[in-house]
Each structure stands twice: as structure tokens, then as C-alpha cells.
């Protein structure tokens, strides 16, 4: 077994660390407070090849590997969970299904701009009445001549307000149930498509979480992704990969909070010594660090399996379940270690605690991950 990074991965990590220190960490608190989408940062990430990291150069990608992409999400999340989910939703939820299921025409039309970060991507599955029960899609798509006509709405769509390209799911045949769902590539300018409410959130506040409204929205029929009826399969397989991204986000948040806690423990003095001298807190650190390490192994193992072309659905579910719960645990303990200061906005740990919570919810709640894992074991 080899746990070491390749030469390229080491250079990439160095570059990412520097980028995060200079471009991401300095604005993290501010964009959390103002809910300002980090558009300039995302553009810089595009120029540096981060937005198309794991895809081939011929398509506009950076020709990197999947593990490096996961590392990028992790490194960003150490300082800013918002920026990391912009990347994860773009790469895993929008670029990937086009890459995996798109025709050559679709790939050549959409991927170059997406992978260079000139376009931003989003994934629209959730509806007001189809959350965990994603199969209960009420958005419909009807083939009329050269167009599918979409009607309905989506909620909670990450990158929604800023995305150029959306993967949208809709019912093409209600009678067929999950086999009646289809996936479409929708451009922001398509007639009949508009952005509705933008959510105000507890965490990842600068990410754009939007409602999408389709009112007789005309989608050219060549924008059907895969075949009619393949939508649910596309959605589920996309989420399998997306979960590794969210797991990496959770891991990064936990690592960031652990670093902050260690730094603070060394400098804060009570009873005439640094609080790092108190065994009660030392044991917190031991517990936090051990869980972070375990989460890291799960995340990288899942990423490695995906990269190696092995099946990874259960690994991804385990990684997301454990890493997100680790993020919650570690950030809560970090706030505890900071005492009253941790509860204020003078330090980043309260933000990290708020940011953690979403990792237990989106791309399948923790309950859903347990359903995926147990169903696979008990099948």
C-alpha cells in the first residue's frame, strides 16, 4: 500500500496552499458576513486550471487526477467552506455527468468553457416536494417538435444564481416512475427559465443557493443528456461522486478547525499556563485529530477507488457520513476550546461550526448515507 502523494500532487498541494493563504483565507469571514459570492476567486481558480482539474487537456481540463481535485476541495475548505462547495458542485455535479453521459457534440460544446472556469455549472434535482425522495419529481418535460418543454421548479440549487450551465432533471413519463425521469443540459439564457428565491443560510453563506423556475422553458432536444428515462440513474451516479467532494469539504473544515484550536491552545493562558497544558483539553485534541485522520483515510480511499475505476458508491457514502459528522464534532469542540471567544466572530471557529452542518444534509442526508451503506450490506 502506498499512501504517498505523487510528485505532481505534491506541487499541486503547494500551489493550493499558497492560493488559499493569499486569495481565500483573507476574504472568508467577510464573504460569510456579506453573503457575497466569491466570483473573482472562482475566475482565478479557472485560470489556474482548478475548475477543470480532473479532466483531459483536450477538453479544456488541466489533465490532472481525481485525487488532486479532491485535495483542492479539501484545501479550500480548510479556510472557506463556501469556496470549496462552489468547486465541488461545479466539477462533480455538472461537469462530471456531461463528461460521463454526454455525446461528443455535447462534450465539445459545453466542457471546454466549463473546465476552463469560463462557465460555472450547477445540478438541479431537488424540488419542494422531492428532497430525500428525489424520485418524486414534479417538474415535467414534454417533447414538442425539436424541443423539450420544461415546467416546474427546483429549490436549493448550489451555484444557482451564478451558473451558466445546469443539469436539470424532469419527468418525461410519469407512468414509468424513476424510469420516467430524464436529464437535460440547460443554459441560463434559455427561454422560459428564470432564477427565483435566493436562500439566506446558516452556513456556506456566500454560496449561491437558488430556486429555479421553468415556465414553458424550451430546451433543444439535442440537450437531452443520455437517453430518455436515464435521468434517475444519472442523478444517483453523479451524487455517488459528488459525495466524495462533500466528504472532502467536511474533512477540510475539520482540519481547519483543528489547526485553529491547536494554535489557540498554545497561546491562551489561564491559571498561569497555556490552556494546552490542561489534560481535559489535550484529550479533546487527541479525539479530534484521530477522527480527522480516520475521515481522511475514508475520503482518500473513496477518491482512490474512483480514480482506479473501481466501484465506489458505498465508500463515498461512508466517507461522507463519517467526514461530515467529524466536521460537526471537531468544529463544536473547537468552539468549546476557544470558550467565549469561540462564540464570537473574532475567530473563525464559529463560522466553521455553522459551515459544517450542511455537510450532514446535502447530497443525501446522513440518514440517506446510512440507507445506502446498509442496503449494500444487507442486499
Amino acid at each position, binding site marked *: 500500500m502506498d499512501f504517498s502523494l505523487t510528485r505532481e500532487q505534491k*506541487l499541486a498541494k503547494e500551489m493550493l496552499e*499558497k*492560493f488559499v493563504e493569499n486569495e481565500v483565507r483573507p476574504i472568508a469571514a467577510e464573504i460569510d458576513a456579506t453573503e457575497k459570492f466569491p466570483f473573482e476567486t472562482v475566475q482565478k481558480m479557472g485560470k489556474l*486550471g482548478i475548475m477543470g482539474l480532473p479532466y483531459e487537456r483536450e477538453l479544456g481540463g*488541466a489533465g*490532472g487526477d481525481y485525487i488532486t481535485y479532491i485535495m483542492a476541495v479539501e484545501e479550500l475548505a480548510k479556510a472557506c467552506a463556501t469556496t470549496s462547495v462552489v468547486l465541488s458542485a461545479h466539477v462533480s455535479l455538472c461537469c462530471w455527468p456531461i463528461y460521463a453521459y454526454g455525446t461528443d457534440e455535447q462534450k465539445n460544446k459545453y466542457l471546454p468553457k466549463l473546465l476552463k472556469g469560463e462557465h460555472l455549472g450547477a445540478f438541479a434535482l431537488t424540488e419542494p416536494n422531492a428532497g430525500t425522495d428525489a424520485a418524486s419529481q414534479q417538474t415535467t418535460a414534454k417533447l414538442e417538435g425539436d424541443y423539450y418543454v420544461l415546467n416546474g421548479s427546483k429549490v436549493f440549487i448550489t451555484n444557482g444564481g451564478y451558473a451558466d450551465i445546469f443539469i436539470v432533471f424532469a419527468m418525461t413519463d410519469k407512468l414509468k416512475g424513476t424510469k420516467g425521469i430524464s436529464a437535460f443540459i440547460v443554459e441560463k439564457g434559455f427561454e422560459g427559465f428564470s432564477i427565483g428565491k435566493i436562500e439566506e443560510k446558516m452556513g456556506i453563506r456566500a454560496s449561491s443557493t437558488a430556486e429555479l423556475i421553468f415556465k414553458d422553458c424550451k430546451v433543444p432536444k439535442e440537450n437531452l443528456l443520455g437517453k430518455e428515462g436515464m435521468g434517475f440513474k444519472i442523478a444517483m451516479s453523479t451524487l455517488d461522486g459528488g459525495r466524495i467532494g462533500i466528504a472532502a469539504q467536511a474533512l477540510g473544515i475539520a482540519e481547519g478547525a483543528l489547526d485553529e484550536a491547536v494554535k489557540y491552545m498554545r497561546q491562551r493562558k489561564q491559571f498561569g499556563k497555556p490552556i494546552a497544558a490542561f489534560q481535559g483539553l489535550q484529550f479533546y485534541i487527541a479525539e479530534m485529530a484521530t477522527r480527522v485522520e480516520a475521515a481522511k483515510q475514508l475520503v482518500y480511499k473513496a477518491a482512490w477507488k474512483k480514480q482506479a475505476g473501481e466501484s465506489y458508491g458505498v465508500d463515498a457514502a461512508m466517507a461522507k457520513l463519517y467526514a461530515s459528522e467529524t466536521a460537526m464534532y471537531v468544529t463544536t469542540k473547537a468552539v468549546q476550546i476557544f470558550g467565549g471567544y469561540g462564540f464570537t466572530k473574532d475567530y473563525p471557529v464559529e463560522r466553521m461550526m455553522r459551515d459544517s452542518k450542511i455537510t450532514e444534509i446535502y447530497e443525501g442526508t446522513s440518514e440517506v448515507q446510512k440507507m445506502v451503506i446498509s442496503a449494500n450490506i444487507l442486499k
Partner: protein
Amino acid sequence: MNILVFIKQVPDTNEVKIDPKTGTLIREGVPSIINPDDKNALEEALKIKESKGARVTVVTMGPPQAEKALREALSMGADEAVLLTDRAFAGADTWATSLVLAKAAEKIGYDLIFAGRQAIDGDTAQVGPEIAEHLNIPQITYVEKVEALDGKLIVRRALEDGYEVLSVNMPCLLTCIKELNQPRYMNMYDIFTCYEKEIKVMNIKDLDIESERVGLSGSPTKVKKSFTKGPKSQGEIIDVPAHEAANIVCEKLKFVHII
């Protein structure tokens, strides 16, 4: 146009700790980086490449591990990399180093040479100017702005109390300071191809230099003693009108026999 950029791999002095007992630098475990001024030099070369078109070759003299610095430069967008490495080069002072670099420049060919002002592990600021002397080409030091025109450059040179604007014909050598630009990050496109590129390795034979002119034997500088400077005593602020202050200062300097 062929642009050469000389870079040096140095220990990241921000990360260097001092052994409290011996007072010497603890170098173990300290990451190696491209010397900061050299990164400004590389950035400027890459900018000229983007605006005018050029081939940018990075060159370093160092042990085989210095390859890492070259890979990093390739990951920032340099086209080619050359490593000058030979046991005979070890222990070189600035004179012997600049001779090797100048020979390499002659072998590789150039229209323009960039170097950093000085390396953070030596602080001599001599190597750049010495290369230019060996090559007998014009040099401009402390460069803080460059405008590339056809066949010549308009260069702004920082002085202590102002600046000089100079026009210089190529070939020439410029030494760069951090005010010149903001070096770019490595990028993922080049990171994932940098190990596919071949690094050209040149040794003393490839450069046609006699062994007594390089390394320790080719170095006129002899280090007599190195020591840690004692802490300076606290200064004294004389807060009175200027002419009175001048008198007080003169008296004090006379008292310690400085004037």
C-alpha cells in the same frame, strides 16, 4: 526571442529556526523554495513571453535536488529548464558561480537575461552583475519596471532616493526586485505536464571550463570567521530642535572618538 532566467533554490528563511544553544541555523526539515527575487525575474520573463512571444528557459546551478525548483518554474509556465550540476561546482563563491552561469548562458544562447537582485541565503547581490561582466553585456540592477520594445527595453531602476529610467539594447542582463511585479502561482495545466518535460543537465565538461576556475578552488573569497552578531543596544532618541540635536550628537560622537 530567447530569455534566460537564473534562479536559485534556497531554504525558506521564514521557516528557519535558530538553535538557541549554538546560535546557528537549523536547516533540517526546512522547505526549499525558489529565491523570492528570482521569482520576480521569472514572472517578468513570462510576461514578456505573453506580450511579445519568447522562449523562457530557467537555469540553476545546484545539487541534483535543485531540480524541484526547476519543476516549479516549469509549473509557472517556463518552457525549458537547465540544471548545472557537478561535484566540482561545490563551495563556489559568487565569482565562481557567476562564471559557470555565464558559460551556460553562452552555450544555451540568449537575447535577454533575468536574475534576482540577491538570494536570501547569501544577500550578496553580486552574481547577476558578475554574469553580465563575464559576458561583457550591459546590466541594469534593481529593476522595478520593464517595458519591452522591439530589440530594446525601457527599464526603470530603483535608487535609494528616486529612480532612473534607462533605455537598453539587447542582449542585456537585468536584476529584479520585488517591486517589479507579483509572481504568479504555479498552475494545474503546467503542474501536470512539468514532469513530462526533460530537464537538460550540464556538467563541467559540457560547459568547457577548467576545474580550477570553479567551485572552492575557483573562489577567491575565503571565509575567515562566521559569527552571530550580538544584539544592538537600544538607541537613544534626542527629541529637541534640529540644530540643538546636531550639537548633542556631535558631542556624543566625539566622546566615543568616532569624530
